[in-house]
């Protein structure tokens, strides 16, 4: 069966949608429903955090002071930069600028890599200082040190789940970069780029809350350290 070659643009509208706009609205709404489940997924961890923080405020404050404020703020900056490059990638796709789209997606991937690199350095630092909950846990100079592991469990759980989302994002990004370079996405149809943008910005938002909650408790005691 020799089928005629159909230009890609002509088949982007599936037959069960009335028009391009309805098709895209359906994708956007579906993506947001998924993101709402993600909000509730992270929400459970945030609730655990707030519940234990109000139960053991002193332990949370002194354990939080063990984090590196400068690295946290710098990493937040890096992640916001990657959100800008992602927004610019969607923008380039909408204007049909293929090379710019690929460049901005690659920039997003690289900035994400820098973020996880810094995160890995921080994890390593916690590891060598015995600040990982477990048999060898130590929290030098911590107030209410018996409850300090609760903070670090939540720290590793929440940043770990966030980092996992970024790793998933990397895999999708690589696929999108290859497809974009091959010219799969046009000004008329680039919905996967837009949907991935929503995912990437969501991951950024999670970090926007993790940064003040994990790094910025009771900093007046340590100053800018």
């Amino acid at each position, binding site marked *: 069966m020799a089928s005629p070659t159909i230009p890609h643009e002509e088949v982007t509208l599936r037959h069960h949608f009335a028009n391009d706009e309805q098709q895209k609205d359906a994708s956007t709404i579906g993506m947001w429903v998924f993101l709402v489940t993600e*909000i509730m997924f992270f929400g459970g961890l945030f609730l655990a955090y707030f519940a234990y923080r109000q139960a053991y405020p002193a332990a949370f404050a002194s354990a939080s002071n063990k984090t590196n404020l400068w690295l946290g703020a710098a990493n937040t900056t890096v992640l916001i930069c990657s959100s800008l490059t992602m927004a610019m990638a969607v923008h380039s796709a909408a204007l049909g600028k293929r090379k710019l789209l690929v460049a901005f997606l690659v920039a997003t991937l690289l900035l994400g890599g820098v973020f996880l690199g810094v995160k890995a350095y921080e994890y390593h630092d916690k590891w060598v200082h015995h600040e990982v909950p477990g048999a060898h846990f130590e929290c030098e100079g911590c107030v209410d040190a018996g409850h300090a592991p609760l903070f670090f469990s939540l720290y590793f759980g929440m940043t770990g789940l966030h980092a996992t989302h970024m790793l998933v994002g990397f895999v999708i990004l690589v696929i999108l970069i290859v497809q974009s370079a091959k010219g799969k996405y046009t000004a008329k149809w680039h919905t996967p780029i837009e949907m991935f943008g929503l995912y990437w*910005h969501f991951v950024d938002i999670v970090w926007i809350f993790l940064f003040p909650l994990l790094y910025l408790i009771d900093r007046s005691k340590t100053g800018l350290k």
Partner: protein
Amino acid sequence: MAHHDNHMADHSENHSEHIVPVRVYILVFLTLIVMTWVTAFVSTVDLGRLNVFVALSIAIFKASLVILFFMHVKYGARLTKFIVLAGLYWLILLLFIAMVDLWTRGWMGVPGR
């Protein structure tokens, strides 16, 4: 900007294909960066119980900017806006009802609480 105008003309009937001007993205980006460092520096000032409220207010402000502009919800369909608000409503229920319970348990003087 000429390119931008041409594009809008091509899709004049398609409101979900709204192209946000680059300067809006840059402005949002700069605000997010400034607020990140503001929240970092403010945290080193002892405001007592207000510290956590300032930190969370700045985070909510930053998240709102990302949702409205980077995620295009400001320009999106009404159903999208409704789903976003419904999600946030459930998150507030989850956090607020549970925390109100924990905050007020001591008030009744019930033994064991």
